[in-house]
């Protein structure tokens, strides 16, 4: 049996989707009344504006460094606390491990809720309950990223081949034992990657939580800009930049070592 005629061309929906997206974007630009022409006119001004950052002023270096270290430590504490919370909740949010579907739903929703709350909002709430300082920042980061980490861990656990869990069920192992002997050994690599990613993210967030009084270098930057002290602002930006790049490189290095 041979095919005598060309089968009809499958309907290609891509142009349709593309035009819908473009129409949507046009609508958004109209609604926001975004003055792109201001931007275009402002390019020259931008040049002048950016030159103000040209001469970084490091005179307050020691206090800046202290703040940056505080930022890093805030991120570290937040990540570790998040890890502990996430590792505890995640098994209940993994289909093969959870004791019953009801608990599964609750665990999943809890993690979603923790993720959905913006860390800034949590920081605001904690600051109003505990006063200013890095502690509310730590807790805000911990709760928010526990949601992320918990979802990652739960997904890792679900990706472990079912047979590994079955073998443990077959010997009569209990909940904790399945987690310790089947789940974690099989998901170690991805989980370390997840934790490094979250730590990276937390360093960036910690740098800005200071804007609501939750410690770190963010507040300093905000004040500098508000007082038009561009030189100090650029010094602070450079410090933040170097720290984040250093952390990024550290994470990549750790990842490489582990492979």
């Amino acid at each position, binding site marked *: 049996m041979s095919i005598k005629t060309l089968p009809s061309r499958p309907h290609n929906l891509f142009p349709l989707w593309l035009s819908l997206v473009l129409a949507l974007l046009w609508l958004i630009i109209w609604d926001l009344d975004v003055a792109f022409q201001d931007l275009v006119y402002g390019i020259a001004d931008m040049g002048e504006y950016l030159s103000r950052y040209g001469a970084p002023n490091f005179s307050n270096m020691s206090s800046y460094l202290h703040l940056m270290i505080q930022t890093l430590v805030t991120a570290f504490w937040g990540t570790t606390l998040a890890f502990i919370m996430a590792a505890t909740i995640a098994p209940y949010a993994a289909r093969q491990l959870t004791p019953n579907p009801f608990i599964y739903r609750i665990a999943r929703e809890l993690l979603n809720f923790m993720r959905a709350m913006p860390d800034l909002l949590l920081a605001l709430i904690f600051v109003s309950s505990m006063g200013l300082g890095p502690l509310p920042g730590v807790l805000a980061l911990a709760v928010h990223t526990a949601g992320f980490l918990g979802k990652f861990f739960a997904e890792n656990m679900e990706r472990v081949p079912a047979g590994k869990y079955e073998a443990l069920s077959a*010997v009569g192992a*209990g*909940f*904790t*034992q399945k987690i*310790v002997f*089947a789940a974690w050994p099989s998901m170690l690599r991805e989980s370390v990657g997840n934790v490094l990613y979250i730590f990276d993210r937390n360093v960036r967030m910690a740098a800005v939580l200071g804007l609501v009084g939750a410690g770190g270098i963010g507040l300093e930057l905000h004040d500098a800009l508000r007082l038009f002290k561009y030189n100090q602002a650029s010094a602070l930006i450079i410090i933040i930049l170097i720290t984040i790049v250093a952390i990024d490189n550290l994470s990549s290095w750790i990842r490489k070592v582990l492979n």
Partner: protein
Amino acid sequence: MAYISLTAVHKTYPNGYCALKNITLDIEAGQFIAVLGPSGAGKSTLLRAMNALDPATQGEISIDGVVLSKKNYRQMRAHIGMVFQQFNLVDRLNVMTNVLVGRLAERGWLNSLFYLFPKTDYQIAEAALREVDLLDKAWSRADKLSGGQQQRVGIARALAQQPKMILADEPIASLDPKASEEVLKLLRKICSEKGITVIVNLHQVEYAKQFADRVIALKAGQVVFDDHPDQLTQARQADIYGTTIEETTNEYELVLAHT
């Protein structure tokens, strides 16, 4: 009284598919039983119903006088060893730990959390590894072993449970012929020397004849043969599989002749 007793066992999956229909069997202690049948006949389902990995939907299964029920799955499984087609070892952990997993039913969660086992468990694991002749690989990572070796670790894990019966669900389907023979010889030895009841799912009729005391054949969820392997004539095989080995070979030659 029979050691394992199935009475009117049905297994119907949620989508309506009926995998086991009205199975009634009595199995004496210390027997080596081969379960045969075409794919989809319900061999796996039968075994997995016995240790409740896929519990029966109707009927009663009792082992050593105790009826299998939701309340006692874990306790029952502690004395039922299972060997899987895909071995189901935890790749990252070493062989010793994989064998020690067999002891988990009797360990509390706290010690398991830290991967701690008492000396007595190590002695049992050592004996199991000696039995399967893998002592020299005790500290190797499980995924560094060949297929046949990994399956022997699986058997060692089952032995570590000090079980009264071992269920082997297609243990040689992923192994080459040499490793397959090794594994079946090992299981036969365990059965004869220790009096452990062994039930093995197989595809190969010759192995069943070579090793088993009794052959149970399933077809479409029902028992169609339950007798000494010598009774398994060509004619009976045709009933079970719909054809015989000779016939299939001849068909193949016929096809070759006509091209």
